[in-house]
């Protein structure tokens, strides 16, 4: 019984939150990785693109709710997501046409593109705060839990509860669907293959008649989709605040680099590595020992490796460690 209790405890506090946060990071990191491998720069504006996606979702949610369209018990955000994705893609392409295209034509260095993306970040951030305000917005509606801790306890008779929030379930399911679609697109379709060829060797791809503008367009379509879904899911799970997305950029970059920039599989693995290590390092192990060790061996104190305040800092620490030990990341980068 103690053993089962321990397992439940771990699933409730590490496994499920880790899977959720990991999927959100993975989706974000995928966006950054794909922009990097095709357009060859680190896109600092990606966090704001995610925020933009979340914002459009919120605005559409309000519109749909005022029209009394909803999807009870699922949140309304699910119905509006396709529309929000289209708007975000449109914004990404617009930004590319007005801003990034010029530097691509000039063959600017990647650092210049990076600084340009900071300009885009400022502008988008300002635009978002201007439209929706800097405050907290909660746009979750419908049933809160798929599985309540109490129900679980009654059902199994364990003393530890296991809860699964609707947002967590949606996040995990949607991420799996998106990732499967993305890999199918990249590996099986002709357009996906041409994109991979372009990122692998630009000159050769141009010689074999691949239209570069089309590749770039598709890149932004994928990026916009990923950004919008990741941003909306994050906002749905933790309530939307424009300010948090700026801070989300760094864990996402860490995830992309840890996995190996330019490699989609790496981005996903990196997202989960970051998410789980954040939870594992800041978890208070006292209760686990309570279940797994005989009573007289259980130490007092919370047994945290680092206090919870350092949660986000952990992603940077991992980033630094990876840069030190294996700068190419877990998977060697630059292959879609």
């Amino acid at each position, binding site marked *: 019984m103690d053993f089962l209790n321990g397992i439940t405890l771990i699933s409730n506090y590490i496994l499920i939150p880790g899977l959720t946060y990991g999927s959100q990071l993975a989706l974000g990191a995928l966006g950054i990785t794909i922009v990097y491998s095709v357009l060859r720069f*680190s896109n600092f504006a990606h966090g704001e693109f995610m925020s933009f996606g979340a914002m459009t979702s919120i605005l559409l949610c309000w519109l749909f709710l005022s029209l009394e369209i909803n999807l009870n018990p699922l949140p309304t955000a699910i119905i509006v997501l396709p529309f929000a994705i289209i708007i975000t893609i449109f914004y990404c392409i617009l930004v590319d046409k007005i801003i990034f295209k010029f530097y691509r034509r000039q063959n600017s260095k990647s650092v*210049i593109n990076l600084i340009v993306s*900071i300009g885009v970040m*400022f502008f988008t951030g300002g635009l978002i705060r201007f439209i929706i*305000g*800097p405050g907290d917005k909660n746009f979750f509606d419908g049933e809160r839990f798929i599985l309540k801790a109490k129900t679980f306890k009654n059902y199994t008779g364990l003393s530890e509860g296991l809860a699964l929030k609707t947002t967590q379930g949606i996040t995990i399911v949607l991420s799996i669907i998106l990732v499967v679609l993305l890999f199918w697109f990249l590996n099986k379709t002709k357009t996906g293959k041409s994109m991979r060829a372009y990122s692998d060797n630009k000159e050769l791809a141009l010689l074999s008649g691949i239209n570069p503008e089309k590749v770039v367009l598709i890149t932004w379509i994928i990026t916009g989709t990923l950004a919008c879904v990741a941003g909306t899911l994050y906002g749905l799970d933790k309530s939307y605040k424009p300010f948090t997305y700026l801070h989300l950029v760094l864990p996402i970059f860490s995830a992309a680099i840890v996995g190996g920039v330019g490699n989609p599989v790496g981005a996903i693995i990196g997202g989960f590595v970051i998410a789980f290590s954040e939870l594992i390092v800041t978890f208070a192990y006292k209760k686990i020992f309570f279940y797994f060790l005989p009573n007289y061996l259980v130490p007092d104190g919370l047994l945290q490796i680092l206090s919870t305040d*350092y949660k*986000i800092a952990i992603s940077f620490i991992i980033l*630094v460690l990876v*840069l030190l030990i294996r700068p190419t990341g877990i998977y060697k980068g630059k292959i879609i």
Partner: protein
Amino acid sequence: MKNRSRTQILYFLMAIILFAVGIFQSWNVALTIFNLCLISSIMTLGINVQWGNAGIVNFGVMGFAALGGLANIIISMPPTSNAWETGGNFIIIGLMIFVLSIIFSVFMFKRVNLNKRIKYLISFLIIFVGYVIMRLIVDSPIEQIESIEPAKTGYLGGFNLPVIISWPLGGLLAAFAAFIIGKISLGLRSDYLAIATLGISEIIIYILKNEDWLSRGVKNVNGLPRPVPYEIELQSREWVLETANILKIPLPEVSSILVKLSYSVLFLLVLLVILYLLQIAVKSPWGRMMRAIRDNEVSANAMGKDIKKRHLQVFIIGSAIVGIAGAMLTTLDGQFTPVSYQPLRYTFLIWIMVIVGGSGNNFGSIIGAFLIWFFWIQSEPLGLWLLSFITSYISDTNLVKSHLLENAAHIRLMFMGMILLVTLRFAPKGLIPEVKR
């Protein structure tokens, strides 16, 4: 010569703008802006020497500035009574053990001849053991120190020395941090370097936010001593009273203007010294070498220049300058608030200043700092004014109008983004381009 006349015109313009603020708004506001302009321009000089002269992307401005702020606490605050007795020494010993374990593991990693994976595992274990020992030693003293009058102190305090010493010390602290960061990350490509420095600066801020025994964390350290007299003190002086009488300005205003002016003089002195040294450095063979490395690493390497060492050197110098500016900023504020360190305000805004002013040109960086800071401060009222102008034909009760006016303050982020993008597009070399030598 074109450059020189452009510099003169821009500086003259900036002076006129500041004077206009003084005349039309108030001299107090003008001097506040001027002081922050001076500090920002020192920061931009630090970044410019790295980016403009050596091509290093340092996104860690925020962290170095915060370390400068920390120097203020260490130097100028009075030591908390009993804090050292209850366990200050234990904390130092604990930290030393941790640092030693890191040094030892690095040493082991370099010297021992084993399989790489085993070496990683062993060094990880050594550091982990060092960390656990540190926690065992440090945890209870920290708790005790943090419980000494937590509302007022609850931290180790400082050395009660004149606050002005904290400026060079801030530079030293930042230089030390830059040495470690540079060792870790300077070998990386520029994008990675940007992200790594940004990440490390966030780590520094997190430490300052959460280690209450060091910096009181989010409780802030208030009432830092000043290098200049207090307003109240000035108000009782004879000559201040007389000036107020002659100029027919209320006494409190005169005293606060005097305080700000004395800050300006101090800051201006520091700025001029740093500018002078940097100008010499840039013109010297050292500066030429840095530019050679920036423009073509491979050929500079072929000429026998040690690129890694030079990069580390310039990284340390630039970061130290940022640290000095950070210390000055905290002195000016009179308080240390770790929460206020945001990458948008510290790192990215400073970068916009450098790019807009002209990377590679010290005078350009300074004018960039002045213009952008001025705009950053004034774009809030400007945005409000613009929006009220645009929406003036809409009735006041309209929801859209009130929403727009409410969020007008955020227009300045858009302005900044647009300024940066427009500069990069139409004048990528900035307002005052680098001098061709």
